[in-house]
């Protein structure tokens, strides 16, 4: 049985842990609001972009002139996966869940004899993936998520890297893994294919339309629009992930605070019992001492 002093120290330490976790919960809650607003504000752009491309794609498809970024290289030998995670931990299974999905996919691809490359956005994902696939990581970025406001320009280097790899013929298929922000307690690990172009599930299917006129010509237009789409999708994934991170952290810290409260309750009970036992023992000693006289 630990002494009374030991109990008091334990209780104090759990109390200060509770203070920290509840403060982190508050911080995450206020950051969440901002991140959520930004993620939601950027959704229309990414969606409209996908719709626009889909319409153009349905008009162009089948033509030999379709650019590689849209139609693909015709092979699926070399795969590139962009993994968007957070820079910081203490957010529950947020990064772990996503990385587990990525690991499964990478293993499947490797087993099928494909070549896999990884680009990590966010420190946690890189750290987790480095354990198993250190030699597959071709690029990693950190310090993008978790800030007050994420600008489009900050995300550009990631997209440029992806495009450079594609141009050099070092990848045939590019996919993007990130946590989609569904609600504060639900973040859904999502696998989105970037190259060749496929419309995300969120976008309703559109009927093929009349042929478009292009200004300037179709080729120049698509050459501009397709890279733009990739950076847009990456940008929106990073925003979703940033909002999801705060949501995940908020619920993780909420749980931690509740657990700490439970623990304090239990410890206090044991402390009081021990105190009573102690008093009883002293009383018995006094009484038996008095009787002996």
């Amino acid at each position, binding site marked *: 049985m630990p002494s009374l002093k030991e109990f008091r120290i334990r209780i104090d330490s759990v109390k200060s842990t509770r203070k920290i976790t509840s403060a982190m919960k508050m911080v995450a809650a206020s950051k969440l609001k901002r991140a959520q607003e930004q993620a939601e504000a950027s959704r229309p752009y990414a969606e409209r972009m996908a719709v626009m491309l889909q319409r153009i794609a349905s008009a162009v498809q089948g033509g030999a002139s379709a650019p590689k970024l849209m139609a693909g290289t015709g092979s699926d030998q070399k795969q590139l996966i962009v993994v968007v995670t957070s820079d910081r931990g203490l957010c529950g299974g947020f990064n772990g869940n996503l990385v587990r999905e990525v690991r499964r996919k990478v293993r499947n691809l490797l087993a099928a004899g494909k070549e896999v490359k990884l680009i990590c956005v966010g420190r946690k994902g890189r750290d987790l993936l480095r354990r198993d696939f250190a030699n597959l990581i071709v690029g990693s970025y950190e310090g993008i998520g978790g800030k007050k406001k994420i600008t489009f320009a900050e995300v550009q280097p990631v997209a440029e890297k992806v495009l450079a790899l594609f141009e050099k013929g070092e990848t045939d298929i590019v996919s993007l893994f990130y946590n989609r922000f569904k609600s504060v307690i639900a973040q859904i690990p999502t696998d989105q294919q970037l190259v060749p172009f496929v419309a995300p599930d969120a976008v309703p299917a559109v009927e093929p339309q*009349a042929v478009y006129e292009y200004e300037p010509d179709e080729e120049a237009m698509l050459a501009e629009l397709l890279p733009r789409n990739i950076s847009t999708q990456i940008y929106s994934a990073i925003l979703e992930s940033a909002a999801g991170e705060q949501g995940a952290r908020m619920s993780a810290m909420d749980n931690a605070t509740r657990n700490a409260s439970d623990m304090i309750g239990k410890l206090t009970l044991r402390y009081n019992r021990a105190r009573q036992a102690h008093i009883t023992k002293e009383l018995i000693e006094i009484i038996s001492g008095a009787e002996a006289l």
Partner: protein
Amino acid sequence: MSTIVFELVSPERLLVSRAVEMVTVPGTEGDFGVLPGHAPLVSSLRVGVLDVRTDAATAERYFVAGGFAEVSPERCTVLAEEAIPFSEMDRAKVEAEIKYYQDALLVTEKEDVKAKFKRRIELAEVKLSLLAH
């Protein structure tokens, strides 16, 4: 008068989404007006002014810095890289922006960063000239 559904979106937010009478879009190959029933068209944008006429009396102007426009007979979607309503533009702010990037230009060494800053300055100067009249 009939209307056309117009949407103006920038990566940061959705600026306009409503029915309007006419839009004038600054395309790379010249400005073009979009009225209901326009032929399907996809165009890239240059830096310039986008005019939106909701009805005969009210018109709004937006500064747009590149992007894309997609037009169909009943819809016009503009995806701008940057879009700011004229009402939110402020001379002093733009001047401060130019100053900021000029200072930043002096301290950076990297060529690609320099090019980026130069582009920001050019954009800001266009904004200034647009604000002048």
